[in-house]
């Protein structure tokens, strides 16, 4: 059922945004319209992000009757630019909450929104020109790598051998890996291999299989993503080497959080990088229109270590992620 409502609301939002069916906000009295433009749900993390966005919009609409939202999801950069232009042209939005598909191409379209005197909230991926957005909400990629690295440093002896699976080659991935390397510096832990798993379960499975035939001794794996961690686990199980190594993933997928809660020795902890950051962005942006609370600035959501003790607060069994 949820799926169906998702489809209809999505379709209505898209139709409204693209076809210009909506009446201008001015005609509806003082209702403030907040445009939300995010990438579509093509993989686990974005699926979670879409879910959190819809849930939050539903909640905010119910709480603040003078707020209206236009949600558009885009599968490519070009589509996202079109979405934003359509929101400006046909919905007369008062604010834009945007998670840029890519920083460079989205910078000038978002700047145009800002120049038209609208409020701009940027989520997760920054724009390539500073000072455009009024509010910036993001996860902490440096902490994401550092927290994982610190756990490795605290739980492995000097001389321990670990392997790393990186994401898709991006600056975000670089930030994480550099922070991880910095955190284990001086511990005597040796990274014996590092390859790209592209945040993909199948690819991570294959890469881990190759690691296992290449290296006789592996003490731990930094999979740097929960989807990849699941592929890695399967490869280790196939080789029958579950007892030799543990895995740290990242992001906060519900299946992984469940394992942490259940004290699975193979997945001792996880590092948060929550798709619910879109909710933070929406809530804080809403405050700008319903109260006098100052909300300008940067809101960086910490990446924390998820342990069996605190796992419950990161567990969203209804989310698809």
């Amino acid at each position, binding site marked *: 059922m*949820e*799926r169906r409502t*998702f*489809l209809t609301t999505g379709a209505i939002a898209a139709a409204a945004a693209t076809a210009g069916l909506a009446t201008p906000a001015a005609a509806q009295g003082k209702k403030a319209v907040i445009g939300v433009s995010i990438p*579509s*749900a*093509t*993989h*686990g993390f*974005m*699926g*979670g992000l*879409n*879910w959190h966005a819809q849930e939050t919009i539903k909640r905010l609409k119910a709480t603040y009757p003078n707020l209206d939202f236009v949600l558009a999801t885009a599968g490519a950069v070009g589509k996202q630019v079109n979405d934003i232009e359509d929101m400006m042209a046909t919905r007369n939005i008062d604010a834009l909450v945007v998670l840029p598909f890519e920083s460079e191409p989205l910078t000038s379209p978002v700047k145009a929104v800002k120049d038209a005197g609208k409020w701009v909230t940027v989520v997760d991926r920054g724009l390539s020109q500073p000072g455009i957005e009024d509010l910036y909400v993001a996860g902490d990629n440096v902490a994401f790598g550092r927290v994982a690295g610190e756990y490795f440093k605290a739980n492995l002896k000097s001389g321990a051998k670990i392997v790393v699976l*990186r994401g898709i*080659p991006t600056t975000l991935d670089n930030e994480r890996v550099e922070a991880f390397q910095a955190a284990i510096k001086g511990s005597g832990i040796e990274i014996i*291999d*590092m*390859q*790209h798993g592209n945040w*993909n*379960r*199948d690819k991570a*499975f*294959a*890469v881990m*299989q*190759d*690691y*296992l*035939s*290449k290296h006789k001794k592996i003490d731990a794996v930094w999979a740097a993503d929960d*989807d990849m961690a*699941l*592929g890695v686990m*399967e490869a280790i199980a*196939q*080789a029958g080497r579950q007892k030799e190594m543990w895995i740290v993933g990242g992001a906060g997928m519900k*299946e992984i959080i469940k394992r942490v809660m259940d004290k699975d020795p193979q997945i001792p902890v996880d590092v948060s990088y929550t798709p619910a950051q879109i909710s933070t962005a929406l809530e804080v942006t809403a405050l700008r229109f319903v109260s006098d609370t100052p909300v300008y600035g940067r809101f960086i959501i910490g990446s924390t270590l998820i342990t069996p003790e605190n796992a419950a607060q990161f567990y969203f069994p209804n*989310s*698809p*992620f």
Partner: protein
Amino acid sequence: MSDAAARPSPALRLPSLSALGPLLALILLVLLGAYLNDNFLSAGNITNVLARSAFIGMIAVGMTFVITSGGLDLSVGSMAAFIAGVMILAMNALLPTMGVGVPLILVGMGVALGVGLLAGLGNGLLVTRAGIEPFIVTLGTMGIFRSLVTWLADGGTISLDFAVRQLYRPVYYSGLLGIAWPILVFAAVAIAGQVAMRHTRFGRYCEAIGSNDKVALYSAVNVERIRLLTYVLLGLLVGLATIMYVPRLGSASGSTGMLWELEAIAAVIIGGTALKGGYGRVWGTVVGVLILSLIDNILILADLVSPYLNGAIQGVIIVLAVVLQRGKSSA
């Protein structure tokens, strides 16, 4: 085209150098791998690589027939993801009534083959009856299948029930006489494909249609039906590949089967099948699949270059394999 002309060679002549090109490339790769890493030829590594190749392999064998008859299918990767999603949902839904057991898994397999058949039939009918370019039809269905699986998964991942998974798991991980099931099934598909291409009317008609469909039509070949059959066959093989794929990770998501279509097409072309149709070589496709997965394996085992450059090395070897094979025949 020159390949096609060279094919009906006298029975006792040795295969030409051009036909051996991909095989040579494969042997070179194996030697390189063995030289770079001691574990390369270990039973474990060989099993991993072969079992991993099996999905793309089965799909590529079907793709060989589609391309040989002058068609193309860009939708197979998305189709595999969609079939996997439907199959898992069906098994999860039937679980309360059927219970965990072999019948449930057989029903799941039936669903996979059925959905594969229908998907292939859809592509085939749009190409033959509606007369739309295969590139456009399958580009369209590629997007449709990919969106459908994302929608079914609600943007996340569709996971098979844990108990069913435990029972189903051996289909990927176990085997007969130490050879994993995916490898055995892939081998059977490859042999059947080779026989069908070389020794049946269906294979000959595929080549005839790909070579010149007008001439084939005037020679009383039912062009539309053969074309339709190639898409249905490919759909069935995608279903079969999915049957072997699902027990591996027990899940399907929007990123399942990403770029499989390109890998399958690349394998077919590396193997010596003409992209414009008219000439197909199933055993070459098998070699092409092995080349593709070995490159990946060697790059990770060997630490030769920065991981950023893996894609470039793969590209160079793919082009080289085709050059080795075409060099002679185009001269």
